[in-house]
């Protein structure tokens, strides 16, 4: 018995997608909706200005300043605004703290929600089907097998599925042996993945 695919879909090539996007852009330029300069400016912002270095500066400050840490955990949006950080896709942020007994990890199973003002734009794997499907069902396995992060069973894993406009991100644990480092040196240890929860900060 053979089966016939129903309306077999055609996946576009990169060249076809590029042509269609350029066609849409051209029409929307003529309609007064877009400009090439605005496209370039927006792309430049997320390439060079808004990225995980901003979240890292928040984390480092929280590590050295207990009062700031308390404010960050109480109201992340305001605490980030103190440092001039906030805006699009981070209008309402919540920071969740890793401890000896708790490891947090963020996802968006329904689309690709992510705290842009502190982490920049998400990596492709965060937006792709594999991570979104599995991180809520088998986070311990995904962290171990796909990210090389072994979380012992004694540590609770908390997965935050960003289904609303609240934007969650992780305050990772400060690495051991960093007592003598200043805020700037500490920030250099904070990786994007450590604020997603798929990694931990670098050791000095």
């Amino acid at each position: 018995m053979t089966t016939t695919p129903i309306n077999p879909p055609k996946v576009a090539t990169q060249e076809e997608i590029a042509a269609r996007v350029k066609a849409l852009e051209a029409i929307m330029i003529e309609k007064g909706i877009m400009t090439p300069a605005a496209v370039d400016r927006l792309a430049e912002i997320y390439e060079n200005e808004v990225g995980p270095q901003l979240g890292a500066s928040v984390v480092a400050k929280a590590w050295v300043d207990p009062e700031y840490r308390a404010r960050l955990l109480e109201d992340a949006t305001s605490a980030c605004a103190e440092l001039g950080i906030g805006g699009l896709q981070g209008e309402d942020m919540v920071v969740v703290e890793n401890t000896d007994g708790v490891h947090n990890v963020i996802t968006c199973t329904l689309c690709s929600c992510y705290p842009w003002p502190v982490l920049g734009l998400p990596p492709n794997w965060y937006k792709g089907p594999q991570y979104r499907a599995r991180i809520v069902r088998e986070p311990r396995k995904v962290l171990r097998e796909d990210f090389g992060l072994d979380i012992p069973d004694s540590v609770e894993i908390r997965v935050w599925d960003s289904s609303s406009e609240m934007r969650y991100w992780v305050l990772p644990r400060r690495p051991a042996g960093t007592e003598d480092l200043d805020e700037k040196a500490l920030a250099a240890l904070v990786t994007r993945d450590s604020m997603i929860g798929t990694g931990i900060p670098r050791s000095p």
Partner: protein
Amino acid sequence: MNGVHDLGGTDGLGPVPVEENEPVWHAEWEKAAFGMFSMPFRAGFFGVDQFRYGIEQMHPAIYLLSPYYEHWAHAAEHYGVEKGVLDPAEIEERTRFYLENPDAPLPERSDPDLMGFVDAAVKHGAPARRESTAEPKFAVGDRVTVVDTSPRGHTRKARYVRGKTGVIEMAHGTFIYPDSAGNGEGDDPQHVYTVKFTNSELWGAEAAEPNGVVYFDVWEPYIVPASERGAAA
């Protein structure tokens, strides 16, 4: 809608494709596609919830296989055509042109207001919080069950939490309701809560990983008191 975008708990998709030192942009066209959220948003094509619904209406196989930012271009095209601003025949014609002439220039236009909008949008965002006089029906600590229905149109009530019982951990105030706004029916602000579900509640004791929970945000109409579970069944 019960769409393929609703991926939580789906099995068989394989390992997470992690790319070391991934660039922000993988191709030039991605920059233009990325601009197709904020700029058509400014032009009144959609709100963020409608934008997501536009993506959800892609063919499920294409949704899974296509590069991410193609989804954004798809949503802009979907609503641009629906609004009568974009003409499907013209899109096809222009696409053929750029396929044959990939280096042909774009039309020229400058727009200082749009440049100002881009910087302001990044800096200030587009808050989804909305005032409402409605009193919250639930409080932190309440045990609640997610209503197990399959609405047509846009919803954020993921399938893997439907019918599941958890505890409210946070109450966030009132926000645009996606099940209304995403379907073009206005903001209809509703209270939003974060509900904590145990792994065993979501997946059953045998399949669940040990010592873990999932937090999922719900709008008030998604939940009922846990005691009503039996009555609803």
